[in-house]
């Protein structure tokens, strides 16, 4: 097996979508949220909305770590980079995210040493190779990525690499889901649960959603067949009036999670009492900070951090779109002041943010069709 092509088999996709149509033919309207930005991206990339019946509505959740990062944190990270010897190292996803005074790439154009890394280990390697410079790894991501940052910090400590630190913006997924369910405007039938976060935290952390909130959760893979099969499983539960956590992504997600990864996280990180999420406000116990034992490698302890707070323009309705209350196109700024080329809000900045995904994949399709129709009329 190669674990990719098999899950894109057109014949099996056809069968799965037939089954979905059959199950969904109840006259009921289903609202299903996919929490994870990677799922949002996959849904658009594979054009899955085209093969789902109209009465299944997919609502995009807040699982996009770039989208929920407050602009002030980017400003703070870049402020540290301004110091001549500090290398700002981050994933490609961060490079075009606008801060108040420009994105990391714009800072690079003005002379800052900004580098793309594919892995926190690459950032540590940069530090090893450049002893005269300090490398600051601007860490983002949910629990999928946090263990890798943790291991990297453990290595930095073991090797006593002193010209390396981490500016930690890791956040946790469960509080975000809680914020969605606590929102009074929310009405959801079920969840497509995070796929890769679950390889670390397992499936147990979602049980309260099924038990206390009565919504089924199916943790899903990222190939078209994975997503379609997850929707089949959700529909079957909904029809049977059940609410359980099921694991569609069994080949990869262990029910109990990855103990070694959780241990590494516990060794290096602790929960912040609260953290600001762009669009969602302050959420308690929702983000990680570096423990005192690793203070030497904590950018926030080594460097003066301005602690900038930037509020989004009132007109930007990122919070409501993040919570799935509004569709991207319903935000007043969507497609006009706020586009992928000049993003105002967080969800337009990352390619997996709902607004950017919608804009790139659907909006242009719809706009182009409208133009064609109106030019024929």
């Amino acid at each position, binding site marked *: 097996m190669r674990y990719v092509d098999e899950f894109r088999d057109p014949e099996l996709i056809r069968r799965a979508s037939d*089954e979905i149509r059959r199950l969904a033919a109840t006259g009921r309207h289903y609202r299903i949220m996919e929490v994870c930005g990677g799922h949002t*991206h996959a849904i658009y990339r594979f054009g899955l909305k085209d093969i789902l019946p109209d009465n299944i509505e997919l609502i995009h959740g807040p699982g996009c770590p770039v989208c929920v990062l407050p602009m002030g944190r980017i400003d703070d990270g870049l402020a540290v980079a301004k110091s001549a010897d500090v290398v700002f190292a981050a994933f490609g996803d961060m490079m075009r995210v606008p801060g108040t005074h420009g994105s990391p790439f714009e800072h690079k154009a003005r002379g800052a040493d900004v580098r793309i890394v594919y892995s926190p280990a690459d950032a540590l390697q940069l530090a090893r190779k450049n002893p005269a410079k300090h490398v600051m790894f601007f860490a983002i991501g949910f629990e999928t990525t946090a263990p890798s940052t943790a291991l990297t910090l453990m290595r930095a400590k*073991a090797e006593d690499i002193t010209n390396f630190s981490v500016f930690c913006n890791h956040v946790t997924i469960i509080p975000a889901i809680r914020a969605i369910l606590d929102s009074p405007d929310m009405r959801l039938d079920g969840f497509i649960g995070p796929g890769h976060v679950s390889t670390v935290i397992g499936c147990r952390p979602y049980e309260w959603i099924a038990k206390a909130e009565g919504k089924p959760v199916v943790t899903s893979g990222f190939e078209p*067949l994975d997503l379609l*099969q997850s929707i089949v499983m959700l529909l079957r539960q909904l029809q049977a009036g059940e609410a359980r956590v099921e694991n569609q992504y*069994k080949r990869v997600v262990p029910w109990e999670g990855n103990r*070694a990864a959780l241990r590494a996280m516990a060794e290096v990180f602790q929960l912040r009492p609260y953290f600001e999420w762009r669009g969602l406000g302050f959420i308690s116990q929702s983000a990680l900070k570096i423990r005192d034992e690793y203070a030497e490698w904590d950018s926030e302890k080594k460097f003066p951090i301005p602690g900038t707070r930037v509020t989004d323009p009132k007109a930007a309705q990122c919070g409501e779109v993040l919570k799935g209350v509004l569709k991207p196109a319903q935000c007043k700024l969507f497609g006009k002041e706020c586009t992928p080329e000049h993003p105002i809000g967080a969800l337009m900045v990352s390619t997996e943010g709902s607004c950017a995904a919608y804009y790139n994949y659907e909006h242009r399709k719809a706009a182009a069709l409208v133009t064609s129709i109106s030019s024929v009329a």
Partner: protein
Amino acid sequence: MCLAIPGKIVELAEHLPGEAVLGTVEVAGVRRKVDLGLLKDDMPRTGDWVLIHVGFAMTKISELDALEQMQLLTMLGETEQAMQEVRGYGLEDGVDVKEMRTKTN
């Protein structure tokens, strides 16, 4: 957060100071060294498939589970066909479909 892809371990490699274990993983003919530190409780062997995210192996991929899933997916259409046959006989729900099919074949 989410881009993680399957790759096959083609070589288990070096031990860095601090007990890091690296492996070389191959994805469609492209090779990259990945850190196996998160799998220390159940180290993979050469030939195993792992899920890779930001240069770290997150979990081993279970071929058995993958095959089982493929089987379930293949049966999606078939189950419905079989159910229709069963309804055609005027029998109640809850009949063992597999049993019925082997009897009628």
